[in-house]
């Protein structure tokens, strides 16, 4: 369950402001975030993940007010509870597919890279049709394959909250469908909450709720 109360955030370097008086996202539900460019869709995800902290208000995820957490606690929370999928995949070019999937374990000392984790990574890759390419460098992949690797990386830690920033923005219809299905399946099977920023209104029907940031003003 995500509870937002009297949220206010602004960037010091420009006049951007985001103000959400009250918003609830049910735990295990699928929420779409929409709104024109510049209305703070990515900022909204950054606030949910604790990358940015609001000047005012509260964001409660699973009964924890992330605004009250210190830097290190917020990071631990992010590592253990949240998975990220980006529009541009944001893969590390010089690593193989498997190493990209396991990246969270490589850069977070608090996550232990065990045999079980490796098996999970391989299972995810197999589900995504990547199992025969695990040793391949990611630069040699198609856009769809890159997004599948990025999804595997987001899911490998078993997150309770999955944040996806325009995950289908750069994909063809076939890969778009596969990506959305994978994210939905994961959320449903694991009772995880999925919050997805999208411009694609044709996808909105599949979501449990739609958050239109335009309605909160700029």
């Amino acid at each position, binding site marked *: 369950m995500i509870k937002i109360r009297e949220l206010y955030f602004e960037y010091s370097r420009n006049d951007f402001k985001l103000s959400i008086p009250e918003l609830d996202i049910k735990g295990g539900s699928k929420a779409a975030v929409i709104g024109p460019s510049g209305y703070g869709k990515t900022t909204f995800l950054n606030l949910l*993940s604790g990358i940015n902290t609001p000047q005012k208000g509260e964001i409660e995820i699973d009964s924890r007010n992330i605004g009250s957490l210190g830097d290190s606690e917020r990071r631990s929370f992010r*590592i253990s509870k949240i998975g990220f999928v980006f529009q541009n995949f*944001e893969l590390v070019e010089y690593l193989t597919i498997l190493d990209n999937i396991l990246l969270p374990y490589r850069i977070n*000392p608090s996550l232990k890279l065990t045999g079980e984790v490796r098996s999970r990574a391989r299972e995810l890759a197999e589900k995504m049709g990547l199992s025969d390419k695990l040793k391949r460098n990611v630069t040699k992949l198609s856009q769809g394959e890159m997004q599948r690797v990025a999804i595997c*990386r987001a899911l490998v830690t078993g997150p309770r909250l999955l944040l996806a920033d325009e995950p289908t923005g750069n994909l063809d219809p076939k890969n778009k469908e596969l990506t959305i299905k994978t994210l939905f399946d994961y959320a449903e099977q694991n009772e995880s909450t999925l919050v997805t920023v999208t411009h694609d209104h044709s996808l909105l029907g599949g979501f449990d709720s739609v958050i239109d940031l335009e309605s909160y003003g700029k």
Partner: protein
Amino acid sequence: MVTSVTVIIYLPIGLNILVNESEEQLMERASSTPLIVGAKGSSLDLVINTLYFEPADFDELTMLAVDKIYETGFAVPIPMFIKFKARSFPIVGTSIEYIYFRGLEIERGESLAVLGDCIIGSEVSEKLGLNPGDTIISSPENILDIAGIYPLKMNIVGVLKESHSPDDRAIFTDIKTAWVIEGLGHGHENLAKSEDNSVLLGVDGNNYIANAKLFQYNTISAENVDEFHFHGEQAGFPITAVIVIPNSDKDEALLMGRYISKDETSQIVKPDKAIKNLLASIFKIKGLLDSVFSIVAISTILLLGLVVMLSLRLRSREIQTMYRIGSSRFKIAELLVFEIGIIFLMSLVFSAILLTATIRYVTEFIRIFIA
């Protein structure tokens, strides 16, 4: 990047090792040679020719210079006539005192005994596969001069023990043998005993006049050695230098005083002084090179800094991604420092390998270079 850093680390240190070793080796031979007398001209050419048997273009002396030193009683003179080569190795015409003076030991065979004998250095023996009992022919000075001096076939009587000096790659003969190569001495069939009358053109007192049919020996053997003779006074025969070993410091000073006069046609040189002058020039060049390396090193370090900065900028999204998926800024910085550290560590390892190889082989390398 690793190569650039390796070169920056290695070049100044490696150059320093090379220059120091060159200095040590050059000074070692120069310091062990007290004085050299030669014709006036370039003292460095004289020293390089006498110590390292390198060909040099300078005037020759006569044996009179040796007699003159000998007569002073101040020093032991060793004549040196270094002009010819045999199969690219220098022929050093000298006296047996040279072998003793340098402390050279005969490993195989025996010492010089008769005209035409030669002792070869260990490298000559090894490279040409020659041993006592073999022969070696002096190279003609000019292959286009068909009327010139005939090459002389010398008998190898001994091989010197390796001394790690230019002596290893020299062929030592008695100075008289070198004069035979010069054409000042020769051997031919004895006309008085010849049975072929067609060779004899006439007799003038004790002198027999022969035509071109007269057979000239190009090798000196036990059978014909008596037929070899020199025309003219040996005091006027050429030498390239005299190594002078003074009996004492006082004798050295007295002897040097004899060469001060402006009318004196020869010069006396302290080899270590000449080499020091040469090294001073090398050090000037080294100083210049050091400055160039410093500038290149600073420029490269700045460039590497720029490359690192640009690389960080190019990787800003990757860094941002790592942060967003949960890495701390400290951990990211640690990773980047680690990457840069690996580059420097690899450069250090490669530099250390190069420096170890340089230290291991510098002595031999400089020896080859100097020899």
